[in-house]
């Protein structure tokens, strides 16, 4: 877009500061058009993509975008046949829209009339329509009048060729999608969550699906020009999928997806304006992917890091409770607060080193103190905590034995895992239910489980 580079120029030059400022402040008319257009597209894709993802129809959109190709070729041929040059963007996009919808209808027909599942139907429609499109493009390029050379641009996108009217189309589509998602937010939410309930309440599942897929088709068709039909689906799926890692509310998810789509569009356009010969469409998709990776790792809702951290925390808590319970059981055997390392080792299947490590940790938490080389003593604080842990554990064991028909020898293992997951509420219920506050004896001989 910056111009001035010949195709044979293979050197890579970092853009100058002045260049960066020019692009970032949208001084160039061309940059301005592209940036605004793809930002609007990104926002629209994020919004409608969120519902598409929740409806579990992400791949249907991929089939839709591939199915547009024959539409483009046929629209070109029709326009040439009527004496035009075949270059009218609106005409081409109408053709694309029609064929995208035909593709969806074929998927629906295959799903409802055969026993094939969705994935097969999507695969068939996607490949057959795309193949047909490529053949028709070849035929179109042989047309004596008109020039089909630009049509190939729809496959991979050619954002640099955008003009002001294209950006206006994109912005209008974004506004339509925004209005539609605001107005139909509750209907689409119901459709995606529980279509049976939606039909009982009088919302036709068919018409809501038609509306949703219609909006998806419009966004896809508009995306053809900038990111191309092969990659258009990325603008719908990736921002929405990334947004899922940041929130548990659909309204926030819509907002986050729109912002991620917008950001990817903006950065993509800026990068391709600054770096020569970088295709805008793929750059935007790569940036979407970048945001996805960031969300997937750092996301506050089930992100990799958060999940791993909470797993570590849980493991640490389980270990701490295990050692406290072992200490409690050791002390219980000779009714005192002092115990020896060997006693604890005998009670559990841990190595001496593990027990030493866990005991050291308990010392730092103030639960036990070391008296001599091999003897330790439980502190008052440790006694309270260990008593609580042992009691919870035994309550749960008794609950399982009484209510869940599990043989007593198999109980300890299950109980070990579940007691740490049980909250205070459940423990209180168990207390009332079973024992009215009396600390029970372990239902199997202590130490027998190792």
């Amino acid at each position, binding site marked *: 877009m910056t111009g001035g580079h010949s195709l044979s120029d293979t050197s890579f030059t970092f853009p100058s500061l002045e260049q960066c400022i020019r692009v970032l402040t949208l001084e160039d008319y061309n940059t301005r058009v592209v940036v605004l257009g793809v930002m609007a597209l990104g926002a629209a894709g994020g919004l409608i993509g969120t519902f598409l993802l929740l409806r*579990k129809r992400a791949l249907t959109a991929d089939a839709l975008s591939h199915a547009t190709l024959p539409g483009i070729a046929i629209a070109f041929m029709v326009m040439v046949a009527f004496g035009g040059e075949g270059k009218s963007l609106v005409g081409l996009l109408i053709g694309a829209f029609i064929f995208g919808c035909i593709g969806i209808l074929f998927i629906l027909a295959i799903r409802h009339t055969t026993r094939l599942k969705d994935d097969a139907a999507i695969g068939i429609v996607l490949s057959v329509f795309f193949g047909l499109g490529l053949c028709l493009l070849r035929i179109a390029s042989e047309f004596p009048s008109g020039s089909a050379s630009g049509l190939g641009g729809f496959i991979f996108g050619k954002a640099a060729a955008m003009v002001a009217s294209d950006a206006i189309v994109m912005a209008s589509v974004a506004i339509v999608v925004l209005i539609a998602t605001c107005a139909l937010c*509750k209907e689409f939410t119901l459709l995606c969550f*529980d279509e049976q309930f939606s039909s009982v309440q009088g919302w036709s599942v068919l018409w809501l699906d038609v509306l949703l897929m219609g909006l998806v088709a419009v966004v896809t068709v508009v995306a053809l020009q900038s990111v191309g039909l092969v990659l258009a689906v990325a603008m719908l799926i990736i921002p929405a999928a990334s947004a899922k890692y940041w929130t548990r509310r659909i309204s926030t998810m819509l907002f986050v997806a729109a912002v991620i789509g917008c950001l990817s569009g903006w950065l993509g356009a800026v990068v391709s304006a600054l770096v020569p010969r970088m295709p805008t469409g793929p750059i935007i998709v790569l940036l979407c992917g970048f945001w996805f990776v960031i969300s997937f790792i750092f996301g506050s809702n089930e992100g990799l890091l958060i999940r791993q951290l909470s797993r570590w925390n849980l493991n640490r808590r389980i270990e701490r409770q295990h050692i406290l319970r072992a200490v409690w059981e050791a002390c219980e055997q000779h009714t005192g607060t002092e115990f020896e390392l060997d006693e604890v080792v005998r009670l559990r299947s841990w190595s001496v080193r593990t027990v030493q490590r866990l005991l050291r940790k308990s010392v730092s938490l103030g639960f036990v103190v070391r008296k001599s080389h091999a003897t330790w003593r439980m502190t008052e604080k440790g006694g309270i905590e260990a008593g609580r842990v042992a009691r919870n554990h035994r309550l749960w064991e008794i609950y399982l034995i009484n209510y869940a028909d599990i043989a007593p020898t198999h109980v300890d293992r299950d109980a070990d895992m579940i007691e740490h997951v049980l909250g205070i509420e459940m423990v209180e219920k168990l207390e009332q239910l079973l024992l009215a506050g009396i600390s029970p004896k372990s239902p199997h001989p202590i130490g027998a489980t190792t």
Partner: protein
Amino acid sequence: MPQTKTEGEHSSESPVSVHDLTVAYHRKPVLWDVDLDFPKGKLIAIIGPNGAGKSTLIKAVMDIVPKASGRVMIYGKPFKRQRKIVAYVPQRESVDWDFPIDALGVVMMGRYGTIGWCKPLRRRDREKALDALDRVGMADYAKRQISQLSGGQQQRVFLARALAQESQIYFMDEPFASVDAATERAIVQVLADLRSAGKTIIVVHHDLQTVREYFDHVILLNMRVVAHGSVEEVFTQENLKKTYGGRLTLLSEATDRLARQGLTL
């Protein structure tokens, strides 16, 4: 048994009257000539073996699955015109609970029907939804994301959503399926409350042990209506044997054979 009524005997006073209903999946009928009136203001159980068409019956009544023949009247009018007085509790497994919405959000869906297209939720709807959550003992979980609820709690959220619909007729598809004791008690309490408010409650039920305790009226179903009437009269060993003993061998064989030939009865 009074299931052989003719057309004229159906009453428009009945909350749900089913006229000669037949439903087929993939050319294979799963319900045959079901013809009955549900009594008003009763707790009604639909019981029968797996594959007997219990869920299909209530889904056909609510136009979720298409009917092969027959029709259904809700207080003498077709279902389409009576949506507002019918509430539905689907099976818990029918939805994906990993959905970005909280318990209150799900219950609020019960209000969508009365709000109408494109209009936002009002404060009144929110209060009704909160009230419904309270009635099933889930008020403290209103802001909890639904995937973090236990199975029984999810079931109670579904029940609360139906309560928020404020209907006359309640259809529930196996609400007691694999729920904890607390949930079972909460549901029983809600059912009793609904009945004393004069509502009609129709429950697909699978636990024969609790039929006598929970319900007034029972429909024994196995592709056709084996018997229906009050629990004392109809819930007998003999009728249960007719319903569960051998899956109506002759009828299902005939169906299979016809389906193979691409025909229906």
